[in-house]
């Protein structure tokens, strides 16, 4: 069987998953005639824009464009969000015009009921099933697969059917990109080259005790005569037996006197000052000598040069100039963008929140990176606005969401993790990014013309996260989850310490609880007929849980999936979704099913603001330069409203309403 070089390269990466995804047709279907003149609709998706902060900053005068936008006849309303109010879930509802039952995304994390294996909810990959083994190498004969898990028709499916041009930049839950004629680049949910949400590298000659390696490859290096030899670890080489890690060596030279350094990597020389990020540096990992390799891009950051060397390297992003995975449609789109405005972050969660949480980056370091992410975004925005003439233009900003998660605490002296010694820049970071959103709106309004409908939408709001609830441990304490060992006596992972023969319910993901159901779970023990009573019992108990520190209730609502979701893709829904009160959320350990000894504790992680609580507390915002004529718009109303605005029919699967009609 003949295998092309491209097939080899793709098959080798991410466990051979990227191989041979069918070539998409870029040309519009010739059978569809242009029967509708498309209106101009621009949507700025500002993830995590909090209504109260928006109003506050408008009053403070740092968002004058938003203020003028409203004074000029625009509408502002809270935008009801999904349960759970998580970005992949909410934006999927935006895309599909329906509740999660209509698109099948219920959390960042789903689980396979047959194996209890957790996985990222929006995409799944599988390696090549057939190989030819030659001298220590495994040559894939059948290509791997990568599937988008979001189901159902999308907003742009209808636009494509009616030949309406659309550009959709980095909307979450859209990887791999599957659109036909819509120009799209994937956003949240796009992995780094290692296949996860982003693993950085960190090289230092300092002691690294106390630094968490979660989300980072920490390497202790030796500086000899101001020179360091090191390697960036790449994806596993699925062409080789044992699938060893690939790597790219580099040499670092440090100036003996100045805080500057030089990095030599793959024939490129990079000069950096302390406190400076490099431009994007393309790197390539060899899979089959002289035949197949896989490329990505990184930025280096000289955190410290003297006396100790501290070098941070971003997660290896998929190179937009030559994407190894389907991050865009048409296939040349990301390259075209990168040639026009420079390379940009393709990783779904671009600013490295993990590195800040792990202590690799400081608040100031992180903020520098976050500003670069936004600068890149704005360059793309301006480029696309310059050529937007008709149809739909959707543009996504991650900045408010990511930076509120990490830096909102430094804006509020009442927050337990407020750092009074933080720089003014860090303390004003949230203000800065809101201000930038204002400037983005200003540029947009200036370029799209008065005939365009302009919508600004956020998928949820924000609040502080100061106390964490170990939901999985609570289920153990209440006897719903049974462990093989006493609670807190093991660091064991997820479900290898669970006694499934006695477990009636278990938690996984940020808000979900699952019943261990006969016929669905691998070792289910609860009959489907008993499930409702069990769910009601758990919900009632959870509502009654109080914080021993202050006596406050922790949970405001526990939602039964059967009551809040409807649609053809209910199979993966958790049976219960826990709606926390403000300041509370599930702990990080609980998300992946670990079992800490305590039930509730202080949040000590710098990820100290959040939105994965009861959606009634964290609505998003919706602004429009057209009158919003319904009182309680929701994020699933957006797609039907946009289609109606364009004079197009709304697919039956879209259950949302038209916000512009009474």
């Amino acid at each position, binding site marked *: 069987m003949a295998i092309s070089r491209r097939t080899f390269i793709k098959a080798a990466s991410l466990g051979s998953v990227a191989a041979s995804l069918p070539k998409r047709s870029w040309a519009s279907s010739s059978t569809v005639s242009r029967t509708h003149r498309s209106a101009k609709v621009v949507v700025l998706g500002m993830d995590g824009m909090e209504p109260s902060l928006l109003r506050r900053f408008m009053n403070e005068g740092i968002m004058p464009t938003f203020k003028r936008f409203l004074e000029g006849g625009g509408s502002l309303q809270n935008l009801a969000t999904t349960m759970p109010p998580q970005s992949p879930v909410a934006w999927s509802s935006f895309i599909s015009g329906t509740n999660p039952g209509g698109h099948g995304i219920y959390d960042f994390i789903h689980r396979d009921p047959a194996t209890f294996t957790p996985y990222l909810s929006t995409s799944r990959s599988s390696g090549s099933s057939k190989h030819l083994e030659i001298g220590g190498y495994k040559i894939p004969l059948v290509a791997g697969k990568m599937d988008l898990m979001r189901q159902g028709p999308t907003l742009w499916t209808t636009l494509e059917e009616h030949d309406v041009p659309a550009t959709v930049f980095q909307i979450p839950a859209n990887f791999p990109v599957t659109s036909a004629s819509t120009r799209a680049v994937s956003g949240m949910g796009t992995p780094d080259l290692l296949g996860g949400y982003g693993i950085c590298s960190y090289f230092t000659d300092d002691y690294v005790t106390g630094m968490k390696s979660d989300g980072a490859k920490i390497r202790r290096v030796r500086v000899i*005569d*101001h*020179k360091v030899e090191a390697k960036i670890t790449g994806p596993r080489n699925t062409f080789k037996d044992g699938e060893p890690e690939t790597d790219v060596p580099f040499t670092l*030279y*440090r*100036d*003996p*006197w*100045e*805080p*500057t*350094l*030089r990095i030599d990597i793959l024939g490129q*020389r*990079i*000069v*950096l*000052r302390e406190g400076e990020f490099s*431009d994007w540096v393309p790197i390539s990992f060899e899979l089959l000598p002289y035949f197949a390799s896989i490329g990505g891009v990184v930025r280096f950051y000289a955190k410290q040069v003297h006396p100790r060397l501290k070098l941070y390297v971003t997660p290896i992003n998929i190179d937009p100039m030559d994407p190894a995975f389907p991050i865009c449609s048409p296939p040349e789109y990301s390259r075209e963008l990168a040639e026009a405005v420079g390379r940009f972050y393709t990783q779904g969660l671009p600013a490295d929140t993990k590195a800040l949480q792990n202590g690799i980056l400081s608040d100031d370091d992180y903020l520098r990176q976050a500003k670069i992410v936004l600068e890149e975004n704005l360059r793309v925005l301006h480029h696309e606005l310059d050529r937007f003439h008709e149809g739909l233009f959707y543009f996504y900003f991650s900045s408010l969401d990511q930076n509120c998660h990490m830096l909102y605490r430094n804006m509020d002296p009442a927050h337990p993790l407020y750092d009074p010694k933080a720089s003014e820049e860090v303390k004003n970071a949230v203000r800065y990014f809101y201000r930038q959103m204002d400037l983005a709106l200003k540029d947009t309004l200036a370029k799209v013309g008065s005939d365009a409908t302009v919508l600004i939408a956020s998928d949820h709001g924000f609040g502080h996260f100061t106390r964490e609830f170990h939901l999985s441990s609570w289920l153990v304490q209440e006897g719903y989850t049974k462990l093989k060992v006493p609670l807190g006596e093991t660091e064991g992972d997820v479900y290898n310490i669970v006694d499934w023969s006695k477990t009636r319910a278990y938690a996984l993901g940020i808000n979900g609880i699952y019943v261990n159901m006969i016929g669905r779970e691998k070792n289910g023990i609860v009959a489907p007929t008993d499930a409702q009573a069990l769910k009601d019992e758990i919900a009632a108990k959870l509502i009654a849980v109080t914080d021993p520190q202050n006596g406050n209730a922790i949970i405001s609502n526990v939602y039964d999936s059967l009551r809040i979701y409807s649609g053809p893709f209910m199979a993966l829904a958790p049976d219960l979704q826990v709606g926390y009160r403000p300041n509370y959320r599930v702990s990080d350990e609980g998300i992946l099913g670990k079992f800490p000894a305590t039930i509730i504790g202080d949040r000590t992680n710098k990820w100290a603001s959040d939105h994965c609580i009861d959606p009634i507390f964290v609505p998003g915002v919706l602004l429009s330069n057209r009158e919003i004529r319904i009182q309680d718009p929701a994020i699933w109303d957006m797609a039907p409203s946009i289609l109606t605005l364009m004079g197009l029919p709304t697919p039956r699967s879209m259950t949302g309403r038209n916000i512009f009609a009474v």
Partner: protein
Amino acid sequence: MNTLFDLLLAPFAVLSPIWGLTLISALAGVVLVLLYGRVSNQRKLREVKRAIGAALYESILFRRDLGVSLRAQARMLKGAGHYFVLALPPLAILLVPCILLLAQLQVRYGVRPLTPSESTVVAVKLTDSQPLKGLALQTDGSIEATAPVRIPSLHESIWRITPHSTGTFNISIPAVEITQPIEVGQEVVRLRPLTSRSFWDTLLYPSDLTLPPLIESIEVAYPERSYAPFGVTMHWVIMFFLISLASGLVAAKVFHIEV
């Protein structure tokens, strides 16, 4: 030599790089074939080619007679060897102008000037590491430079520079008395990416800078130009080779030159 090529290539500098390179390549193909016609023994080449053709015809005609066919094929091989021997000296002669032309094209069409805000590195290699500590790069306000990274073990110092406007700017290192022009803009101009004491570097990267005694080389990492004729990205040398080959074959036909 630089001045000669400056004059020869000046008319093409007004064209966009891809058209300039296309025209130069096409003309180079014609000129090289004409030159080949002058420096090669065309009469002998024709005779050998005719003999090879005759042997080929013989081997086809007498393909049922193994002995005759094999002898004909042996003559073909011998003829091919003879042809190679005849072609080698003129090709060796052509190699000289070819290398000179390619080197000159490399500094014009292989690399391009910087654009405003585009960073690159300037590296200076000294003959001795002693003066490294005192090295400082001076620029005018149009170019920003980082502090140096000095590497005593390599006798080398490197800076990152970033121009802010278009034009030709000088950067200098007073301690070792050298001034290096930096080109910023869109035009096709002769760049000086590398000035070195090495013979091969001097041959391949023609430069008119004079190196002071303390300096082994000075390098400006200008970005490569990219070419994508008909949407196919290719190195400029490949493009030169393909176009000059095509035009050379046409010229050979037109001017009845055996190649």
